[in-house]
């Protein structure tokens, strides 16, 4: 098994996140099968693969939405016990879900602080303070956003997306998981998210990026990790492989020479 990462291609130091030999099965289907992946501070690692390859599932294990059947998760070199979303947030892991996971019937501020509300000295909700904070963070992400009093269901796709992103960065995340963060966005907003990713990266935040857009991936990610049928095909620095080679990994499971093969790599007939 090729779970040792060659020092030549891996960044040095303690990984921020190190997921080892993770497996999970739903019914009889092994959605994630012995997958290992790591992430270093200030690094963007893109997770690629077909629909149903197991990327979202793997990431939901890290964010605490699913409980793994097997494997270990290390945060900063120490084994972490993550069994629900609250645990993950304790370790500074924030997630922007593909579905955005917004409570549609409450306003933006309520969504930003959902589960972590600001309270007044009386133990009641401090809506005013929350709205003020929300205005600050939204002003950074989407300066034209003004609809703070409306339930988020009334917002446009891009506005909803920026609420979801704002929620993830509001609490000083150390590890950010972005599942298709630009799926609902126009070109200009996509570029904004790209800028944001670069800015967060320079702050030393580690980012897992799930995307179908291979151009995005090559522009933003330092490394790619390709999954197929729940297994890791291989991991590579984006400088060591071409886009075609990555497509080959996604479609055929064929690991190019520049990548470190995983358990899911196509076995070449001897």
């Amino acid at each position, binding site marked *: 098994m090729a779970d040792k990462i060659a020092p030549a291609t891996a960044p040095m130091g303690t990984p921020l996140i190190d997921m080892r030999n993770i497996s999970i099965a739903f019914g009889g289907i092994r959605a994630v099968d012995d997958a290992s992946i790591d992430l270093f501070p200030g690094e963007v690692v893109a997770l690629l693969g077909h629909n149903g390859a197991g990327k979202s599932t793997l990431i939901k294990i890290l964010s605490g939405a699913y409980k793994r059947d097997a494997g270990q998760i290390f945060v900063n070199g120490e084994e972490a016990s993550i069994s629900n979303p*609250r645990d993950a947030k304790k370790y500074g892991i924030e997630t922007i879900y593909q579905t955005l996971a917004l*409570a549609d019937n409450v306003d933006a501020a309520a969504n930003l602080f*959902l589960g972590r509300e600001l309270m007044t000295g009386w133990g009641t909700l401090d809506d005013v303070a929350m709205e003020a904070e929300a205005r600050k963070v939204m002003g950074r992400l989407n300066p034209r956003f003004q609809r703070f009093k409306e*339930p988020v269901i009334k917002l446009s796709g891009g506005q909803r997306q920026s609420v979801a992103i704002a929620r993830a960065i509001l609490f000083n995340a150390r590890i950010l998981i972005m599942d298709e963060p630009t799926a609902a966005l126009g070109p200009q907003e996509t570029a904004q998210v790209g800028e944001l990713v670069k800015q967060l990266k320079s702050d030393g935040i580690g980012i897992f990026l799930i995307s179908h857009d291979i151009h995005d991936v090559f522009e933003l990610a330092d490394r790619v990790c390709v999954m197929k049928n729940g297994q890791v095909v291989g991991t590579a620095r984006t400088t060591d492989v071409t886009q075609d080679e990555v497509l080959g990994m996604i479609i055929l499971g064929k690991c190019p020479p520049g990548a470190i093969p995983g358990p899911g790599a196509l076995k070449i007939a001897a």
Partner: protein
Amino acid sequence: MTDTTSNQPVGSTAADRARASELSAVGRFLKATELDTRMLGMVGALLVIWVGIHILSGGLFLTPRNLWNLSVQTSSVAIMATGMVLVIVMRNIDLSVGSVEGVIGMIMGVAQAEFLIRVVGFQLGNPWLWIIALAAGVALGLLIGAFQGFIIAYMEVPAFIVTLGGLLVWRGMAWLITSGRTVAPLDTTFQLMGGGPRGSIGATASWIVGVVACVAVAFLLLNGRSQRKRFHFPLRPVWAETLLGVVACAAILGAVWIANSYPWPIGIVRQYAQQNGITVPEGGLYIAHGIAIPVLMAVAVGIIMTFITKRTRFGRYVFAIGGNPEAAELAGINTRWVTMKVFMIMGVLAAVSAAISSARLNASTNALGTLDELLVIAAAVIGGTSLAGGSGTVMGAMLGALLMQSLQSGMVLLGIDSPLQSIVVGAVLVVAVWLDTVYRKRV
């Protein structure tokens, strides 16, 4: 930001005038007062029903006596409806509230009229009788709610099934406690919760309550305004604020006036005069009922529940879970525990309603609260609680309860047979929800 602080009916800036001119007079009014149109619609429907029944019954409905009775009859269902709002907002249902009310009424009755006297040896009239009985009832409500809530939240049995089971189980229990025997009479202090001449606070106290409530309304309006001003949020025009305040105070004081216009019956006045050594003057002695204690309890519950839904973390979570359960879970909210707590609140409210209903009957019967679950659910739904979850207001549900009760007691006044009453109530429920669906699509 538009300048809406002007005290003229129409905003003073050109932009505002231009925008305002696009709206009709009604539209401008609604925009300025920020009133909820569906709530206004409900108040309108209520008035139509009241005036309609008043005319049809030849002037029997809109009398102080009938309105006072209506307020007492409404309180029990209104109290439970506030809890049902939370249950339904979380996409659950509670079919067991009527039966829970029944079994708790029975326990409270047996406790004060039999157990504490015969077994523990308390004297009749001991104040601990009603305190212990009420506390035991509330505790039992909490336990039943926790039990059902646990099965729903942690064992993942659908609420519909758990509470359908509860509907049968608790009604059966209510019967078993005394093998169907009715327990009466209840403690005299406990009876005050049922209303009646002695269960009302009298004219002076009612006026005080009314004035305090008006001061509170004024304070809330002013406080809201200063908060908005401090953070430069748009303000309502002054005339709109004033109008809201005046209408609210007029409604409160009007209600107090009506309650104070309903005098004690002559027989009770005579009895009271004898007991207190007062000689009844020539034209009779006028003693007003004032606001009934159960109504005060319902208002208090309404205020507390509104506070819980709007101002506490728990209330926020209930609505967030109703809006998107998965998102709430992913946000780290302990959705199971919140679900269980909602059912615990529902149980406590059923206990309060049980106290009021049994006190009003001055007896505990195993049939107490039969079919109340349907009235409670209907009140919540007519009051704008969406069965799809995520939306609903306590105030709306209480108005819904008043509407249902108005229809029912109005039909009794009109002498309509009870099968026909059921038909009307059922039809009204369906039509009301249909209207609500249409309204939601349009907005």
